[in-house]
């Protein structure tokens, strides 16, 4: 019976992805002093569906007879769908006890499908994208984990519901605002969005890892990327502004976070790769470790005050 909620969630998420493409195109174009697509139906609302139809009607052929060729993108889509199981329903607490660990686990698994995709298309461009991808994603996984570990220390439990309980007095963004910026940057990197989209850098590697992928297999890749984007915005909203998902303020801040993540694409240029690595290992990781020590001392202080 509860399967109906999850099925509806998936359908709605995929519709949101379709409209997210239009959202992104319109915003980027307004930032460049032009209007985006506004011809189809009513001010361009039918555009995403026509994009999907175009992709479905394109030609389909196999680059190699290996089954991994079409299973790779499907696996990517599958992982992004599994990530949405963490959605914080309040009435169906199915195994809600360890949701944070599950979420981290699935986010770490995002590396493998892209590895398979880049390897199967026997092209030097994809291979270069692959090398960059691996280093980028695994470096920032450590950082993302440490930020989540900070939250686990604040909340003292792996459940999501404690987030709402601890944010009854004040939002977390007020007290832990450095974490907001660090998490924003790390999530953007984990999603391979500009300014960190080195693996699909259009002017360097011709479309990077999804070079030899057309039509339906490309649909999987790009669906999974945008579904991850939606999920990360939700994570930012829940962690820092702890509203329940049925309030209107949740909607407002969720759209604000999504807007921010999309707008960054139109403003910043792509980062150089060694600057990216320096940023992770030298600057942000050290900052994060010191912040963890500092916060743990605060907890000790609180404990001693109330002995």
């Amino acid at each position, binding site marked *: 019976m*509860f*399967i109906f909620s*999850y*099925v509806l969630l*998936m359908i709605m998420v*995929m519709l949101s992805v379709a409209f997210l493409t239009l959202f992104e195109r319109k915003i980027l174009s307004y930032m460049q002093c032009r209007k985006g697509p506004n011809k189809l139906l009513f001010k361009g609302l039918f555009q995403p569906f026509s994009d999907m139809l175009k992709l*479905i*009607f*394109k*030609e*389909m*052929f196999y*680059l190699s007879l290996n089954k991994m060729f*079409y299973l790779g993108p*499907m696996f990517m*889509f*599958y992982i992004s*769908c599994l990530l949405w*199981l963490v959605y914080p329903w309040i009435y169906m607490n199915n195994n809600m006890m360890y949701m944070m*660990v599950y979420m981290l686990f699935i986010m770490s698994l995002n590396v493998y499908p892209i590895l398979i995709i880049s390897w199967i*298309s*026997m*092209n*030097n461009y994809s*291979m*270069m994208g692959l*090398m960059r991808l*691996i*280093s980028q994603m*695994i*470096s920032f*996984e*450590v950082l993302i*984990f*440490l930020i989540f*570990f900070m939250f*686990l*220390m604040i909340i*003292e*439990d*792996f459940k999501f519901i404690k987030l709402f309980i601890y944010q009854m007095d004040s939002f977390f963004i007020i007290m832990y605002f450095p974490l907001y910026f660090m998490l924003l940057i790390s999530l953007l990197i984990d999603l391979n969005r500009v300014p960190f989209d080195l693996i699909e850098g259009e002017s360097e590697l011709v479309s990077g890892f999804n070079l030899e992928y057309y*039509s*339906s297999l490309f*649909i*999987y890749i790009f669906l999974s990327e945008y579904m991850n984007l939606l999920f990360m915005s939700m994570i930012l909203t829940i962690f820092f502004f702890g509203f329940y998902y049925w309030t209107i303020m949740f909607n407002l801040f969720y759209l604000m976070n999504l807007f921010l993540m999309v707008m960054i694409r139109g403003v910043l240029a792509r980062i150089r*790769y*060694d600057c990216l*690595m*320096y940023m992770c*290992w*030298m600057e942000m*990781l*050290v900052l994060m*470790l*010191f912040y*963890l*020590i500092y916060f*743990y001392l605060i*907890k*000790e202080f609180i404990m001693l005050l109330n002995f």
Partner: protein
Amino acid sequence: MSMYFMFMTFIMLISYIIYNLNKYLSMNKKINLEKKIPFECGFNPISKFNLPFSMPFFLISLLFLIFDIEITMLIPMIMYLKYLNFLIMIIIIFLFLYMMLTTLIMEWMLGYLHWMF
């Protein structure tokens, strides 16, 4: 538990639908060998298909391995914060964070983080 299996079959159903829609609605084009071989700047490739082994990427993977084990051991600390007294916990957590910090600073000083080509 069966709910998750139903969820998984639903997702597989969606992927199956997308794949088959594409298969039966796609255009029929002539099979051209030029589409199946890798390209390089639009022409046939000159260089062979294997990239030289890059040291920095490998070093980063090793670094990640070390830190990954540490963060895997940090996950159960959360439960200990609730049940153990803070004198023990301060020693344990500071040990872990101190080890991570020293590892990182040592690597920095020894030059493993310098991005060389």
